[in-house]
C-alpha cells in the first residue's frame, strides 16, 4: 500500500475528487428540477423552493449534533459492563 498505483481505483484521490464533483453536480440538478415542476404541497412549508433538499440537510446536521451532545453524557468505554 505505498504508491497510488497499488491502491484500488475507487480509493485513489483522483476518483474521490471526481466523485465529489459529480455528486455536487447531481445535487444542484436535483434542486433545479424544482424550478420546472409545479409544487403540490400537502401543507404550506413543503411547497417552498427545494424543500426536501434543505430539510434533509438541516435535519441530518441537527441529528448528528444532537447525537454528539447526548454522547457527552451517555458515552462510556465499551468495557463498561465487563465487570458483571
Amino acid at each position: 500500500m505505498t504508491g497510488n498505483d497499488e491502491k484500488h481505483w475507487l480509493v485513489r484521490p483522483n476518483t474521490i475528487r471526481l466523485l465529489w464533483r459529480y455528486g455536487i453536480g447531481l445535487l444542484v440538478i436535483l434542486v433545479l428540477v424544482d424550478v420546472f415542476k409545479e409544487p403540490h404541497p400537502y401543507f404550506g412549508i413543503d411547497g417552498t423552493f427545494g424543500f426536501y433538499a434543505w430539510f434533509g440537510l438541516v435535519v441530518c446536521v441537527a441529528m448528528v449534533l444532537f447525537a454528539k451532545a447526548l454522547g457527552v453524557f451517555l458515552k462510556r468505554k465499551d468495557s463498561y459492563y465487563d465487570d458483571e
Partner: protein
Amino acid sequence: MTMSDFPPGLVLILGAFLLPVVSQNIRSVLILGLPLVTLGLIWSLPDGSNGVVSLFTYELVLVRVDALSRLFATIFSIMTFAGGLYALNQKKVLELVSVFIYAGCAIGVVFTGDLISLFVFWEIMAVASTVVVLSVGSKLSYRVSLRYFLAHMFGGGLLMAGILAFILDSGSVEFSAMQPNTLGTVLILAGFLVNAAAPPMSSWLSDAYPEASFSGTVFLSAFTTKTAVYVLLRGFPGAEILIFVGLFMIFYGIIYALLENDMRRILAYSIVNQVGFMVTGIGIGTEMAMNGVAAHAFTHIIYKALLLMSAGAVLYMTGKRKCTDLGGLFQSMPLTTICGIIGALSISSFPFTSGFISKSMISQSAADESMFVVWMLLLAASAGVFLHAGIKFPWFVFFQKDSGLRPTDPPWNMKLAMVLFAALCIGLGIWPQYLYDMLPYPVAYEPYTVAHVVKMLQLLLFSGFAFFLMLPFMKRTLTITLDFDWFYRKLGGVVACSLDWVLKVQHQAEMATRTRLANYAKLDLRHFEPRSRPIGTMAVIMLLIFLSYLVFSLLV
C-alpha cells in the same frame, strides 16, 4: 379434522425435533424443505376460521386465515427458508432447532384467533429465541440470554395478567380489535409493546440480538418484533398513543445508531427505528396506514435480514464487528458489499427498492389525515434512516479507511441467500403490485410519480451530503452508549449489593450474638450454621411468585 384445520406453524415446530437426529445431508434438505412445505400449506388454506378446539368453556381458534394473517405467515416462511439457506454451515444444531420452533410459533401467533393460544405460542417464542442466543455457548451469551429472557418474562407476565383481566371482563377469548380503555386491554397492549421493543423496554433488543451467532441474529431480527407489529395491527388499530410511542422509537433508534460502534448493534437499533415507523402507522390507523404498515413489515423483514446477512458474512469471515476494526472490505468482498448496499438503500426507501413502495404509504397516510407534525417528523426520520443505516453501515464496514483485512466473500450458500433477498428488495421495488395485491385493504396508491421520486431523491441525497460534511463528527470511538438497561444492569446491581451488604452485617451481628451465647452456655453451635440468607430469601420470593401464578391460573 381436515387439512384446513392443521396449523401450518406446526410443520416447523414438529420438524425442528427431526433436525438433531438425522444426518447432515437430510438436515439440509429439511432446513430448506420444511419452510417451503409451510408456505405451500399457507397458500392452500381457505379464508375463515378453522382448527377450532374446545378448552373448558372456551373456543380456541388455531387457524384463522385472512389477507393479513396470510401476508405475515408468508413472509415468516420465506424468511425461514432464506435464513435456513444462509445458516447451512451453522454447526450448532441447537440454534437451528430453536430457530425452527421460534419461527413455527411466530406463524402460530399469526394464525390464532383467540388470546389463550396466542399467549401459549408467544411464550414458547420467548423461550426458543432465548435458546437461539444461548446456543452460542459463551459465558457472555449466557448472561445476555438471561437478561433477554427476564425482559420477555416481564412482558409475558403483563400479557398474561391482561388476558386474564380481559377474559374476566368480557367473558370472551376472541382476539380482535380492541381499545386500550380497560385494565385488561391496557396490560395486553403493554405486553405486546415489550416485544415491539417500545420504551422503556427497548434495550433488550440491542443488548441481545448482536450477541447471537452470525446466523442467529438474522432470524432474531425477523420474528419477535414483527409478530408484535402483527398483534398490534390486529388488536389496536388507531390507538392514538401508538403514534407517540412509535415516533419516540424512530428517533431513539436513529440517535443511538449514530453513536454506536458495533456494526450489528447499529443494525439492532435500526430495527427499533423501523418498528417505530410501523407502530406510528398503526396509531394513525386508516386503511392506507394499515396497508402501509403491513407492506412495510413485509419489506422490512427482507432488507433487514439482508443487512444482517451481510454483517454476518463480515463477522463469519473476519471475526470482527466493530467499525473501528473494519473498513475497506469492498475490495475483497464485492458481492457482500453490493448486497449490503442494496439492503441499505432499501431501508432508506430509495426509489426502485422495496422500502420506497412501503414506507411512503405510512407518510402518505399522515399527510392524508392532515397530521402536520407527524408528517414532518416522519420525513425527518426518513432522512435520518439514510444517515444511520443507509450510509453509516456500508461506509464504516466496507469503505472508510483501509483496515488491511482482505477476507473473501462467504461460502456459496450464504452468497445465494444474500443474492435471493437482494433480488427480492429490487423486485418488490420495481413491481410493487404483487405485494399490494396481498395487503388487507384494496390499494389506491401509486408510488412512482415524478414528483414523489424527485422529492425522495432530494431528501436522501442531501442527507447523504450531510453525512459526508459531518464525517469528522462521526469518527468512531471504542464506546457504548448508556441505555435503559443501565437501570437493571448497574443500578439494580448496586441495590442488590447494598441489600446483600445489609444482610451480611445483620448476619455477622447474629453470629456474634450466637458466639457470645455459645460461650455463655458452653455449647458448640458450629453445626447450626444458618444457611446463606440471599439464597433463602430468593427461594421464598420465587415460591410466592409461583404460588400467585397457580392461584391466578385456578381463577380462570
